[in-house]
Every structure is written in structure tokens, then in C-alpha cells.
């Protein structure tokens, strides 16, 4: 789960990471109220999960209430690279002496955590990494040992942070690491991490990706699941706990396992169709999950056919079949369905489905056959 900046800052604050005082606003009037509370000057910041907010005009400095009102009116509703701004974060403007960069994430190759710090923050850090890799100090951290104070010091010294920033930066890095580990984040990133003229170090931005697998031990994460996404199909899928990514095609895809779902999209594409979505019903998929999946696909008006591709391992064939039967009872499925079912208890599953077979519900033995049929049913010309 990716957090919005304001949520990231709230999360940072729980781990003692210094952030600017601020508040959330959904209307221009609320923005003024928040600005009055935190004190002028303030920064009005669009809350969207996409880079380049500043260049798009989504971050503005305001000296007084009139300016806050004007900026808030301009920014709310703004489309920033496909993301509509629905919420603002109003925070007290900081005086900035220097801008740095800091992050922790998993280095999958090394199978260790990786801390990165740079004295060249506040800019496109990927560009810095490409042009001048040495400008980014890196330190692998063994998860069984954790980040030590000397590790933090090594990072800030290697990155060449200004001497007056170093103690504060080490302290912040230790808290950031604790937010990363104890907070079960896949990523914590601060860009910029600033040094104020008074010598204080604090986080001026917050990018936090939480590990959804850890949500069972973080009931407090519920409050982060507030804002709706931009794709109503994805919002519905998320509510139903499905792994769904909306695409633009006409063949709805349901498969069990991320690999098979991806492969199903690839095969539909290869035979001349376009997948409408990626939908992984997962290893433990049962009747309820299948019914939910069909309901989500059914809300997609572009879908002309549905390709259900299930290979049974943990998901047993009869569970899949029962799910389809139940789903068909629950919702009026608009598009014809092509199913390819194999693996554990596939025979029992196919037996259950036999009663449903018609020209709008067909079974095919192989992935390629099923993909071609689905593309044809969607009005395409399969290759």
C-alpha cells in the first residue's frame, strides 16, 4: 500500500521522525483553516501518488489566507499526470539551508536491507544515480543485526552531509530505519531531507510503501485506506481483496497465480486481443473469491468476453467451478465466458461446469485455444 505524503508524514511522526506541522484539507475553506492553525507562510501541496507535482503546479507557497484560498482552488481538481487532486496537505513553510536524500528499501539481489543517503537531494535522485553514482552513499544492513549508530554515521559521512547536519541526520536515519522495519514498510524515502538555517534536520517529504502482507499486525493501517483510487474497478477489487490492475482491452482476465495471470494477458495479446485487466485470484481462491472476481470484471463496460484460466494447485477445481456457479446466480454476467480448467480436481470441476455449457459459456482445453476463443467472442480476429 502506497501512502500519500500526508499519511507518510503522519506515519513518520509516530516513529519520532521530525516533520513540519501541518493538516489535511479537502476544500479551499479547510485549507485556510489549516493554514491559520499552523501559521504563515505555508506550503499548499497536492496529495497525489505521482512524481512531478511541483513542476505541474501542485505545490505552492502562500504568504496569507488569500493566497492559500487561491492556490487551493487552483490545485483541487487539478489533473496531475492522470491523477485528480482531491486532497491537500497544508504545512508550515520551512526555511531550507540544504537538501539531502535518504531511503531504506530491500536489495533483492543481496537479500539485505539497503540504506541510501545523498547530499544531492531535492532533485530527481534517479538522475543523480545515473550521472554520478558516487554521490549516493549506500550501506547494506543485515536484518538480523539492524542499523547501528556507527552504520548511520558511516552513511552520512560517506554521503558528505554538512558537518552541522550529521548528528541530526544520524538520529533521523535510526528513526527512519525503525519506521522501515517496525513499521513494516517496503520502502521509506525522504526527498528532500532538509537542514534548516538553525541547524535542524527534518523530513520535508515522505514516501512510504507499506507491506500489505504485514497488515494483520497493524490494525492502525485501516485509517490509511480512506481515499478512493482513480480507477473504480481497482477500488472495487481492493474492497474485495483481489489483486487487480485495470488495463484498456476487451478481454477480461481471471487467473490463479500472478504468473499465470500475467501469462494469460501475454497470450491474449499474442493471439491478437487486448486484456481488459490483470486479475489474480491467488492460491487460496475459493467460491467466494471467484464470485467476487466475476463481479469486478462485470463492472467493466469495455469487457466483451471473459477468460477464466485456472490451473489447480491449492485452488481445487471443484471450488473454482462452484464459485462460477454461485457467481452466475448472484450477478447477471454481461459477457460470454471462456474457461480453461486443469490441475487438482479438475475433473470434478469440469463435471460441475458441464451443466452450464452454452455458446456463452465454453470450455477449452489449452491456454492458446481458450485465448483465441475469448478474442473471437470479444469480436476480434484471433491469430
Amino acid at each position, binding site marked *: 500500500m*502506497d501512502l500519500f505524503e500526508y499519511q507518510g508524514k503522519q506515519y513518520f511522526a509516530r516513529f519520532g521522525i521530525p516533520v513540519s506541522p501541518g493538516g489535511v484539507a479537502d476544500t479551499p475553506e479547510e485549507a485556510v483553516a489549516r493554514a491559520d492553525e499552523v501559521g504563515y507562510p505555508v506550503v499548499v501541496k497536492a496529495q497525489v*501518488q505521482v512524481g512531478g507535482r511541483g513542476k505541474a503546479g501542485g505545490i505552492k507557497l502562500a504568504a496569507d489566507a488569500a493566497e492559500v484560498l487561491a492556490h487551493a482552488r487552483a490545485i483541487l481538481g487539478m489533473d496531475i499526470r492522470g491523477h485528480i487532486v482531491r486532497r491537500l496537505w497544508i504545512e508550515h513553510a520551512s526555511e531550507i539551508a540544504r537538501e539531502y536524500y535518504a*531511503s*531504506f*528499501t*530491500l*536489495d*533483492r*539481489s543481496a*537479500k*539485505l*536491507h*539497503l540504506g*541510501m543517503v545523498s547530499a544531492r537531494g531535492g532533485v*530527481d*535522485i*534517479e538522475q543523480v*544515480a545515473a550521472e554520478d553514482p558516487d554521490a*549516493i552513499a549506500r550501506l547494506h544492513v*543485515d*536484518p*538480523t543485526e539492524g542499523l547501528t549508530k556507527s552504520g548511520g554515521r558511516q552513511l552520512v559521512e560517506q554521503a558528505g552531509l554538512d558537518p552541522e547536519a550529521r548528528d541530526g541526520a544520524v538520529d533521523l536515519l535510526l528513526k527512519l530505519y525503525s519506521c522501515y522495519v517496525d513499521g*513494516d514498510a*517496503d*520502502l521509506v*524515502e525522504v*526527498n528532500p531531507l532538509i537542514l534548516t538555517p538553525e541547524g535542524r534536520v527534518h523530513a520535508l517529504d515522505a*514516501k512510504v*510503501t507499506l*507491506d500489505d*502482507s*504485514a497488515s*494483520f499486525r497493524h490494525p492502525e493501517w485501516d485509517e490509511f485506506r480512506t481515499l478512493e483510487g482513480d480507477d473504480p474497478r481497482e477500488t472495487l477489487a481492493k474492497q474485495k481483496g483481489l489483486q487487480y*490492475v485495470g*488495463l484498456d482491452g476487451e478481454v477480461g482476465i481471471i*487467473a*490463479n*497465480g500472478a*504468473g*499465470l495471470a*500475467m*501469462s494469460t*494477458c*501475454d*497470450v491474449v*495479446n*499474442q493471439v491478437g486481443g487486448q*486484456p481488459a485487466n*490483470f486479475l489474480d485470484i*491467488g*492460491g487460496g481462491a475459493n467460491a467466494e473469491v471467484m464470485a467476487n472476481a466475476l463481479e469486478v470484471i462485470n463492472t467493466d463496460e469495455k469487457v466483451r468476453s471473459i477468460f477464466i484460466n485456472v*490451473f*489447480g*494447485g*491449492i485452488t481445487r477445481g471443484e471450488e473454482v467451478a462452484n464459485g462460477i456457479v454461485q457467481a452466475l446466480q448472484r450477478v447477471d454476467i454481461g459477457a460470454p465466458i471462456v474457461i480453461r480448467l*486443469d*490441475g*487438482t480436481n479438475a475433473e470434478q470441476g469440469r463435471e460441475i461446469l458441464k451443466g452450464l455449457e452454452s455458446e456463452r459459456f465454453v470450455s477449452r482445453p489449452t*491456454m*492458446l485455444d481458450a485465448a483465441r476463443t475469448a478474442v473471437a467472442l470479444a469480436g476480434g480476429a484471433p491469430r
Partner: protein
Amino acid sequence: MSIFVDETTKVVIQGLSPTSQGFFHGMRNRAYGTKVVAGTNPKRGGTEIEGVPVFATVKEAVEATGANAAFNSVPPPFAADAVIEAAEAGVPFIVCITEGIPAHDEARAYNRLKRDFSASRLLGPNCPGIISPGRCNIGITAGEIAKPGGPVGIVSRSGTLTYQALYELKQKGIGVTTCVGIGGDPVPGTSFIDCLAEFQADPETKAVIMIGEIGGSAEEEAAAYIAEHVDKPVVAYVAGVTAPPGKRMGHAGAIVSGSKGTAKAKMEALAAAGATVAVNPTEAGELMAGMVASL
């Protein structure tokens, strides 16, 4: 021969109860012919389930039965600790199929094994397990979709695509020495490279199918390994060519992986390393059939 497991492998099922996933799949594995010698459950020590003696701990199970492999499908909050318990009991091969273990738990468990229990190999988590057709099946693979014998070895990051590969080969009359599902989680205990090294050393395995996915750089690393160390033919398939670039926040991940991670980059790296790259799972089977015919 097979890799990691064979007909002598003795399995202890962690978290055995009449309703657990371990029970459902463990009984299927036993019916397939796998030697399931014990189960563990702290609340059921001293009992028996379907003829399988249950012990309170893995240590007791190993002492009593000589189990040398563990099948771990316990729920995510407890799975990483269960891996460590099996390693502490001296189990050399631990298969963890559990999906949804927090990444930090995985990273800790992996590094703990590496540091303190280097004699134990973890397969998974979030994987379908391992099957050496006709000899041993630990995990969730439906045994009937695999043809015993050889000459092909399979290693895959994706569960259902693993079954797909087994199935494609069986339909073409081609046997498999061992099929290893390494799982799609960020910190897999066993890597492509670990399996490629074993297949290269296994005289019965003459060719390898490798199935990858977008994300991470495991396929690129495997490609580099293939170029240097594998002279057996490799057919590779990577899922996710049409996957849209995922919503990505922050830049740390991109700095770590650079341009790696896309299906295209992975396929190019594998092709450059001498692997034959298929565009879909069916073609992977067909290409392998051609290779097997010319062996």
C-alpha cells in the same frame, strides 16, 4: 537422479491438524508416494492423524523419525518462526509454501538461516514446492500432471506456470527429473542459480526449463550464471510482457535495480546468455520437445 529430494526423503509436516493446509496437501503428497513420517502441532503431541504420528516440536519429530525434510504451510504470522524451528532441529531441506509472509520476517529468516544454519536449505516461501515425479512430492503440485523420469529439469518463480510447464511436457511425453518452484516473494530461500547449479551437476537432467516473472533481477542474475556455468540447453519463459509498469512510488527501488526488471530486459539477458527464449508457456514446451528429440 533428482535434485534436493528423492525417494528416500522423509517429510515432517509442520502445523498438522485435521483442517490445516498441511494436512490436505500432506495427505495428497503421501498418496503420491512421498514418505510422510511425522507431523508437528504443539497442542497435539503424542496423537496420530491418519496414521501420521504428531509431535509437539520438529526436534522431537526428527529424533523419533529421522525426518530430513519439512513441509511448512503454517499461516503467515507464524511461518517464519516455523522455518527457524525446522532449521534449529537440523532439518536440511525446508519447503515453505505459505503465501503472505511479511517481507521483513522473510528477510530476517533468510539471513538467520544463512548465518546460523547454513546446512539447512529453504525453498520458498510462497511457492508450490518441489516434485521429483515418481519419487517425491512436497507441496501443492498435482502429481498426476508430471511424467516421471527425465530428461528435463524445471525451475520456476511462478506456481501456476510451474504446473503449466509440467503439463505441457507430459502431454508431449517428456519426463521431468525435478521441478522446483522457488516462489515469487522478494526473498526466496532458494534461487534460480541454486537450482541451475544442481541441474548442471545432475547427470540425469539433460535440459532445463526456467520460468521467470517481471520484477527484481533474479532472471538477469540467472542469465549471467548460465553464460558462465551451464552448458546444458535452457529454455526460458518470462511472464509479464504486456504487464503495465506498476505504480511506483519513490525511487530507491529503481536506483537499486536500474533498468532490470522488465520482461523484455530479462528475455534479452537470457537470450544473450545462450538460453532459448519462448514467448508463451506452450511454446516453451514445444521448444523443449524439439531439444529433447535432438539430445
